[in-house]
């Protein structure tokens, strides 16, 4: 596979390490009253779609950036690649 890195251009997927669903960015609030349930869902339950899947890849043999890659799990077609840090910020994560 080839991942078109937003900063570096097309790079062989062998340079990357896969993590999983980009929902892993949305780490629950540890202080919420339903934190135990929320962390269970966050940690364990997956949409696992047959089709478009936003997922996290880490450019370990590259610039060490985490990317959000939108890839079809049936055809493997990649339709978008974003810097995960930008996605995280857009989803309201801060510090």
């Amino acid at each position, binding site marked *: 596979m080839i991942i078109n890195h937003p900063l570096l251009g097309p790079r062989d997927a062998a340079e990357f390490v896969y993590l999983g669903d980009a929902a892993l960015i949305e780490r629950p609030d540890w202080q919420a009253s339903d934190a*135990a349930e929320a962390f269970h869902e966050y940690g364990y339950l997956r949409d696992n779609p047959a089709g478009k899947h936003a997922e996290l890849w880490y450019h370990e043999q590259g610039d060490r950036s985490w990317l959000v890659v939108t890839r079809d799990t049936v055809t493997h077609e990649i339709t978008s690649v974003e810097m995960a840090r930008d996605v995280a910020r857009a989803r309201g994560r801060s510090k």
Partner: protein
Amino acid sequence: MSQVNRISGGQIDRSQEFKFTFNGKEMRGHPGDTLASALLANAQRLVGRSFKYHRPRGIFTAGSEEPNALVELRSGAHLEPNTRATVTELFDGLHAKSQNHRGSLDYDLMAVTDLLSPFLSAGFYYKTFMWPRAFWEKLYEPIIRKSAGLGSLSMREDPDIYDKGYLHCDLLVIGAGPTGLMAALTAGRAGARVILADEDFTLGGRLNSETLEVGGMPGAGWAKEALVELAAMDNVRLMSRTTVYGAYDHGVYGALERCTDHLASSGGKPRQILWRVTSKRAVLAAGATERPIAFGNNDRPGVMLAGSVRSYANRYGVTPGQKVAVFTNNDDGWRTAADLVAKGVHVPAIIDVRDAPAVCDVPGARHIRKAGVVDTVGRKGLKSITLTDGQMIPLDCLAVSGGWNPNVHLTCHQRGRPEWRDEISAFVPGRDLPPGMAVAGAANGAMTLAAALAEGQTVANAQIEALGYKPGKADLPRAEDEPRDCVPYWHVRESTKRGWLDLQNDVTVKDVKQSHREGFRSVEHLKRYTTLGMATDQGKTANIPALAIMAECTGKTIPETGTTIFRPPYTPVPIGALGGRSRGRDFRPYRLTPSHNWAKENGATFVEVGNWLRAQWFARPGEKGWRDSVDREVLATRKSVGICDVTTLGKIDVQGRDAAAFLNKVYANGFAKLAVGRVRYGLMLREDGIAYDDGTTARMSENHFVMTTTTANAVLVFRRLEFARQCLWPDMDVHLISTTDGWAQFAVAGPNARNLLRKVVDEAHDLSNEAFPFMACGEVTVCNGTPARLFRISFSGELAYEVAVPARYGNAMMDVLIEAGREFDACPYGTEALGVMRIEKGHAAGNELNGQTTAHNLGMGRMVSQTKECIGNVLSQRPEMLLEDAVKLVGLRPVDRDRGLIAGSHFINKGDAATMDNDQGWMSSVAYSPSLGHSVGLGFIKRGDARMGEILRAVSPVHGTEMEVEIVSAHFIDPEGERLRA
């Protein structure tokens, strides 16, 4: 024997002669021959035996689709089983042997299976060999295994080397026949970066095997001119002997280049290169493969595909027989007859299943219409055929053509399904092609030469236009639209004898019918039940006729019955090539510690720790075994001072305004308030609450921390930290960079550690316990000004430091530490002594932090803060992770102090049976403690922390032993920690 079947012409170099042997018999051939063409030239008709019935077999094709002519090539460790003679280039001194027979090729004892064939029909083995139960493994299966299989491995290490590489292009053209050449010329002239690859050693594809003209000259001549033009283009790379074997995601293709297989010796150079080709676009111009027609005893040596017979005659100057008839359902078969006659070969008859006029004039040949072949005679070489009307024709070769199948293989590699096209009675590429790929020429069903050339041009133009190149002008060479009419005709129904479909695996028409009868009707069931198409040729010639016969049985059309799709590789690829250089000691890189050379010179034995090599112990003269060395190292360290290279621990520089806050989130215990100049032990959890890694982190300045990780997890922790930094808390100002390799770090441990360091650390730095207490850290200089870092931390439980210098000084630093420590009898120690001391001290390491244990299990539950946001703390509180009777880390010692504990033992209460229900836990680490004079262990026991003093059994049934052990504190040495604070 002379080359009795040589005829005129061909692309062989008759000025040179090669000697080779087949089954020890010496023969001769020429450069440009394949082993198959040379065997045919020498009239060697019988070349092998089939898989199941051990039927005599001859050469069937002239290409990589060959099912029969498999040989063991070369000898000794170079032995190469299952090698297709049809694609093996002849070289001087080649040795080949036939395979899969017991006794000689001519008198194969296993041929008796053929007589038993009525009882060995499809799937017979599923229905028998079940009684008595033990007989399957003891009797039946060994016999089956021995008679199955094809060629033999040498059982010796492959002596050749292999290489790999990466190629990039705008357009990959797969196949260098007329279509591929035209496509490459078109794209090359337009300036695109082109790779043209073909499995053959001479590019040109079927132009080399045909008498057809292109642009007013012989096709082979036109091909040569095209190749000259292409070779002159900087932007074009020509790759002969290169099979593009797989189409992977996003335009990546796997290709195998055979560099030295055509030479007697590889001469120390890579035998083959595995290329990963990253293409923006591809044109598949892989041509078509002829298919046979099934009829009674159609597997005799001498029955061949018609196009292949033509290829031997035209390209290799060989006729496979002196009397060659043609049996065809299409126009193309006629060209074989015509070309043979033009070369002076006698063609007694053309048997055409169609009721149609002659396609062309073939002098001397009878045209027998609406007829078929029902049987043949000639066990080890064809002697005659019998036709549907009963007439017998004596001959020694029958050229059969059942039509042509486009080579759609690569179009299926991403699960694309081919589609049926009635006009050519064949499957053509479907619509779901691998993205970026287009198909042209015969591979796409454009069967005539003129059509192939035209399609090569238009498809290439479309592909490069999409990449922004200007398409080339139409200067298409003139060529023929040769007649290609073909009717669907798969087997001669009148035949009562077995008609073969899969020649190698011995699958006949009857087997397909039986498969249908037993309900194995889906194509995949047919394949799996009969083994159709599962031989080394993957059914390249067999699958479609078999599918057609299944369609007949079910009364459905062929496309309704199913399609077969193909999987990579197109042709088999040696495992050695796929492994490349990564074998033996080059399987993975070595990482060496900075003091590696010193250790080597000082008697170290090394051990693999991940990719690292670490000194395990340093043997001294007179020591009888490793235990002597390790015991000495431990005792010397605890008595005075020892030195160990601990560079392999991961080191991560953490900087930024939010560095402290960040560390506070990634460690389970608090880090926000760590003072500058101090070190703290940190426990890292996974998000699921399981203990993940531990280490110390030092605060060098307000915004600068130095983290250490375990050796094993250095890369993984870094990855997780980057995830936390970029994905979880993206607005933190924190920056990470690995410095693992940058600092040579040494543990200096033992009561004299400070005294030793005082001789090495420059005087400006106060090492007193007051100025530099336990868990202090700082930047210092050593040996007159070399910058260094000093940490007062202890893994051994002794007064200890770790001192780090830039790695380039590491080897010298080891020397200096030993030299300066001479007055203290300073002793280098390796990982074994390190391990012994950490067990004596009760420190958890990899065997305890194995990804299955919680802080609760490790006795560190209280370190996990519940008053801050940090990774893992929420899920660490799940009810069944905090159970009262959870296993707890404890120390163990044998009741009989002379016995040695065994790591991996399980604990069973006295009096209980050793069953899983009674399992109390396991022993994770053991060592002989020279300090205590007996074996000590760490282990996990249910409620272990509340069971101090209890005696249990440590059982190790796999060793057949058990012993009583006592639960004790894990801190065998200095439980109060007085030494390390001294």
